[in-house]
């Protein structure tokens, strides 16, 4: 190989090494967020039958919304359907771990809680699960973010984050936007 081409390839190698350094910095930050801070995308691979989920079980209508179990674990269950969230408003406490569990009986939907890292697809056949902590009180917008049909644009819900003092479960451990 000509001497000149060797020098060209050497220059390219220097550049590639520098780029490898840049990539390594980013990878380290991403891995740290994932392993150190447990900031991972929803990946629970848990199946549910979209055709029967409204009939009985976890996603039956009377189980939807926010529920505090006997151990104090807070779970918010929502069904995303053409073209509404059920329920359209959920209450969660500030500064406490909350688990969202979502399922779809019909087509693909998705959601983002605006201003937070809560973001997931809702794929019929699977339960989407996101753990999070909201650190500020307020009413957060939660639009459907995946095309699900002509009414897609109307599909918006709210997450009401309240201070712990205002988060009062009823006798069954339920908290709704109405009470």
């Amino acid at each position, binding site marked *: 190989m000509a001497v000149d081409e060797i020098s060209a*390839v050497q220059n390219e190698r220097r550049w590639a090494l520098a780029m490898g350094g840049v990539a390594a910095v980013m990878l380290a930050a991403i891995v740290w967020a994932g392993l150190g801070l447990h900031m991972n995308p929803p990946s629970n691979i848990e199946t549910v039958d979209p055709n029967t989920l409204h009939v009985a079980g976890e996603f039956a209508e009377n189980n939807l919304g926010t529920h505090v179990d006997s151990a104090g674990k807070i779970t918010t269950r929502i069904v995303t359907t053409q073209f509404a969230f059920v329920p359209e408003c959920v209450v969660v406490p500030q500064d406490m771990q909350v688990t969202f569990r979502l399922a779809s009986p019909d087509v693909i939907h998705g959601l983002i809680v605006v201003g937070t890292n809560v973001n997931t*697809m809702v794929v019929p056949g699977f339960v989407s699960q996101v753990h999070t902590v909201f650190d500020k009180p307020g009413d957060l917008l939660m639009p459907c973010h995946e095309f699900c049909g002509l009414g897609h644009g109307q599909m918006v819900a709210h997450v009401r984050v309240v201070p712990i003092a205002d988060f009062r479960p009823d006798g069954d451990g339920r908290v709704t936007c109405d009470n």
Partner: protein
Amino acid sequence: MTINNRLILAHLWTAFAAFGVAILLGLWQMWVRSPLAAPLSTPDNYYLSVTAHGSAMAYVLTTFFIMGFGYFVAESALKQALPAPRLAWAGFVLGIVGTVLVVATVLSGQASVMFTFYPPLSASPLFYIGLVLVVVGSWIWCALMIVAMTRWKKANPGTPVPLAMYATVANAILWLWTTVGVAAELLFVVIPAAFGWTQTVDVGLTRTLFSWTLHAIVYFWLIPAYIAFYTMAPQAAGGRLFSDLMARGSFILFLLCGLPVGLHHLFMDPEHSSGFKTVQMMLTVLVAVPTLLTVFTVTASMEIGGRLRGGKGLLGWIGALPWERPMVLATGLSFFMLWFGGFGGLINMSYGMNAMVHNTSWVSAHFHMIFGGSVVIMYFAIAYHIWPNLTGRLAPSLVLQRAQLWLWAIGMMVMSLPWHWLGLSGQVRRVAQFDYADPSISWWAPWMIMSVVGGGMLVISAGMFIWNLVSFHFERTGAAKPGPVEYARALHPGVPVPAALNGFVLWNAFVLVLMAAAYTYPIAQFFILKPPQAVVHRVDRTP
């Protein structure tokens, strides 16, 4: 000089005709989303339009442009006639028939499922069959590119395949691999459901198969731009290709790394494990390597041009470049937009960080900047570069060409930059109308109007582009005849090219191994897990 000019022009004009219509739809969509009152603004029309815009830009503009440009490269770089031009015409006709089916089904409202399908939504079967025909037509192109290169190698033993052709064949092979995913999705799941032969679909499986295609298809679209970066821009700038070997290496890396990364489109999906998501995130980081190498190699090649033209100092060569040449100008503007598009893409691929932006306007901003901006501006530049050859006439006006390129880049920035912060503030994609009376989003209004203005600039630029090309055909042939298109020579010509960098057998074996590692389990899991299926939702019949 090329022989099958009519074939090439037929492909390129089909591509640009689709582009010309689709961009008008794009402007109307921005108008509908903005606070300004738009005519015909209903959800039905909006989703029909988004489907048409996406299908025309992503499938018709790209596929026909790439095929036409490939035929041009095969004849001009290899300096030999295309093998079997009749077959090439057959591929063209298949593509046209497919396009007509797609247009007819979309315009009649039978296929408002977006160009990404989203089963269990189900459109008219003719929509999917149309797309399959376009793809089958492009497979003929792939075969012809491979045959052209193989024949040339036999006739020229010991001589490396010219870089432009080597890269074109890399793209043809990449495309064959790429289309396996979407072809499987359409043929085994979506089309049977569309005909009513099956009543349910495995949604996770269809999403996974489509993800196989979804990243590599973008590399299929952008490789022509990279071919121009490496082989046309340095020549136009009076420079030399800094390293022919590195250029070949970059195209091979696109082939290797562009494919086993599609799960990064499913980071926010519940049906895949964080393990496979992480693996494909890491492979996605590797995908950045060939682009970063290209940025360096092409910049160095341009630097040679600038210095040969008298540019001094560390950066003086930049000003010394012949910016009045459309190819040079387009390359500069393309690299500028590549920074923004690349930045958006880096956030998208960063695993957990994807949660900030997934399915928001940020994503639209990213792909408009990188595809509509960096790539399509090079499609323009390539057209300007080869049209003299195809028509035998010199450009009527370089001033108009430059003005068109500038307007495109500025329009793209004006339109898509606001989408970044709107997306970060929770503006989702594919929503026709927002409630600007809501105080939490009322501040979006001026930015959305800015996007409409940017869209208007793009429409004007597109009109100028069509005009610039049409005016070639009406230019009288004068005494001055355009010379043949010359591809950039390497800075150090005559460097022996290793056999591995002159063929693809080895790399195909690598792709096979990588794809097996990346996708065997993510696909097989649906047959092991057997998740409950979802009932098909037809959009082509009103219940």
